[in-house]
């Protein structure tokens, strides 16, 4: 009988030890979540603080897009609609502007990147969007943007779009600039 008593005590103690060990492991698991978390975010490409980056030379497809406000009698066309950007290199794209009316028009172009993160990877060195401009009646003009590409590019991005919206401004605003 005594031996059975001991065996029940032992059985209880063994189970308690296993449970205590489980608790200890879960304490460690709490700490392990820290490196897991960083690795997981990197794996999913959602690590905003330290985005996963490739070495120099990786390619990024850059697309150029234009939109013209309806009230402006001007057409705008991307002459180099798609370019391939290489890490550390430059991208140059040309656009053709044509005033379809006899009147002078005053314009500015608003750039926007999609995804927004691309703005940090493609810095504008030179852009017609830096200043407002005027187009005389029936004038046709070629304008340029030059982008400097970051040294490292995230592989998950694949493509970026730089879009220009052409808007009309008052002549006074042109002079003020």
């Amino acid at each position: 009988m005594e031996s059975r008593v001991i065996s029940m005590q032992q059985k209880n103690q063994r189970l308690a030890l296993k449970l205590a060990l489980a608790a200890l492991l879960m304490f460690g698991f709490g700490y392990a979540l820290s490196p897991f978390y960083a690795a997981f975010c990197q794996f999913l490409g959602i690590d905003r603080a330290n985005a996963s980056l490739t070495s120099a030379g990786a390619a990024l497809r850059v697309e150029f897009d234009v939109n013209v406000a309806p009230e402006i009698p001007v057409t705008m066309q991307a002459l180099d609609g798609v370019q391939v950007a290489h890490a550390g290199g430059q991208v140059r794209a040309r656009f053709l502007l044509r005033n379809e009316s006899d009147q002078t028009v005053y314009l500015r172009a608003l750039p926007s990147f999609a995804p927004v993160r691309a703005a940090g990877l493609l810095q504008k060195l030179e852009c017609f969007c830096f200043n407002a401009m005027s187009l005389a009646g029936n004038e046709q003009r070629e304008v340029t943007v030059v982008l400097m590409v970051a040294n490292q590019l995230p592989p998950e991005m694949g493509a970026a779009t730089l879009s220009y919206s052409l808007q009309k401004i008052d002549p006074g605003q042109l002079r003020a600039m």
Partner: protein
Amino acid sequence: MMTSLAHPHTHSEHSAEHHAGWARWLYATNHKDIGTLYLWFAFAMFITGGVMALCIRAELFHPGMQYWQPEFFNQLTTLHGIIMVFGAIMPAFTGLANWMLPLMLGAPDMAFARMNNWSFWLLPPAAALLLISLFVPGGAPAGGWTLYPPLSAQAGMGMDLAIFSIHLLGLSSIMGSINIITTILNMRAPGMTMLKMPLFAWTSLVTAYLLIAVAPVLAGAVTMLLTDRHFGTHFFNAAGGGDPVLFQHIFWFFGHPEVYIMALPAFGIVSQIIPTFARKPLFGYVSMVYATCSIAILSFMVWGHHMFAVGMPATAQLFFMFLTMLIAVPTGVKVFNWIATMWQGSMTFETPMLFAIGFVCLFTVGGFSGLVLSIAPIDTQMQDTYYVVAHFHYVLVAGALFSLFAAVYYWLPKWTGFMYHEGRGKLHFWWSIVWFNVTFFPMHFLGLAGMPRRIPDYALQFTDFNAVASVGAFCFGLGQLLFFYNVIHTIRGGVGPAPDKPWEGGNTLEWEVASPAPHHTWESPPDIELVRRGLIAQAVEHEEEGDAR
């Protein structure tokens, strides 16, 4: 022979019973004494946290700043949350498990009587640390019960006291859980297989496993916070390469199962009470067990729904959203089973049954508002508004607290040997249910209208509903004095001695011992026929199944 098998520590570990007065409680190793200690401690914490809630509602009665500085208001909301969760609800359930599990399972005591004493006596110092933090420079923690950094990383020394307090509370919970699991797995009466245990034992078992899995994770999180604060680590410090969002992930990996740690024992209690007063066996016993386990498993996978507004990829939002919705399925199984148990039963409406039905109705309301919040785009709007406050109070007050009231009224005759005053019990129920709804229902509207939580002042358009909620809160609080009076009155003799089996529909083993339950019960495990009779009455065993043995 079975006697010694079931209670190996009977003589050696009960020397404490010879102590009298305060020493009886300080050295308590008897599960009933420790259960009583847990329950009184939980009640004291409930009153403490409740007074803090009333201080909060007093400030919010009118717009503008009346009584407290904003810093102190934040300390009140933080301590109210921590005290109610860790000091009131969780110890109350552990107390019930201590008191009732050995009785229900036919065991003489909990598996580790001395550890049981330890796990209780860690609680008062933990509570003291929390309360002392109010008086140190910088005051108590004021970053909400979730203790998110960077706020908590920058707080004063009150935060350190809270961290140590959480360590002690966690240690106590883990020790209590080890005791509960060992008792349930190793010390059941002969003939009571796992799938024949009372449902309260099942929910206590699953809850204890949940606690062992997640309490250490919280301990890890607050330890990392502590080392970030004082030892130069940067787990959550963005300036040092850490990420504060990581804290949220770790916290909610603990925090969401914690919600079920406070809900599952309530499910167990209600699953004991409803069959008793419906005079019918519990409908779908096995499905209830599976639903309990499913809820526990799913609870580990849905923490991200607390973080929809943090910024999360759409895929992850969808994952957490759908899994959260999935929890409604096993929970729905439970609710429908309780209703099916009552269906065509010979129901009577004594106080425990009233609280149990109140629980089912209002917990369902809380569940539905949870379902609303599980939808990521809606949650983004509702995040940190009073809608969330309304939701979790429906779950935790009308859920956990009402089930505890139900349990106290249900087992009080067994504990004290006296019957409580039924009229006063019913008054307590109706008073509570009315004022609870007056307090918390308007908060849904406040949240939908955009009132943020954790603010001491608010825009004028929120005045009326806040005034109503504050009146409700004070009346609800007042009603709990009636509960206190009821319990004291019952302990002192109540309306007369209670029979051994005060509820005609009670079939589980605790009703087979005398009222009040003697200091030592089941010195010899209950006779297998006695166990079987209860199992047949609960329909977890059938007549022919028993005959076959």
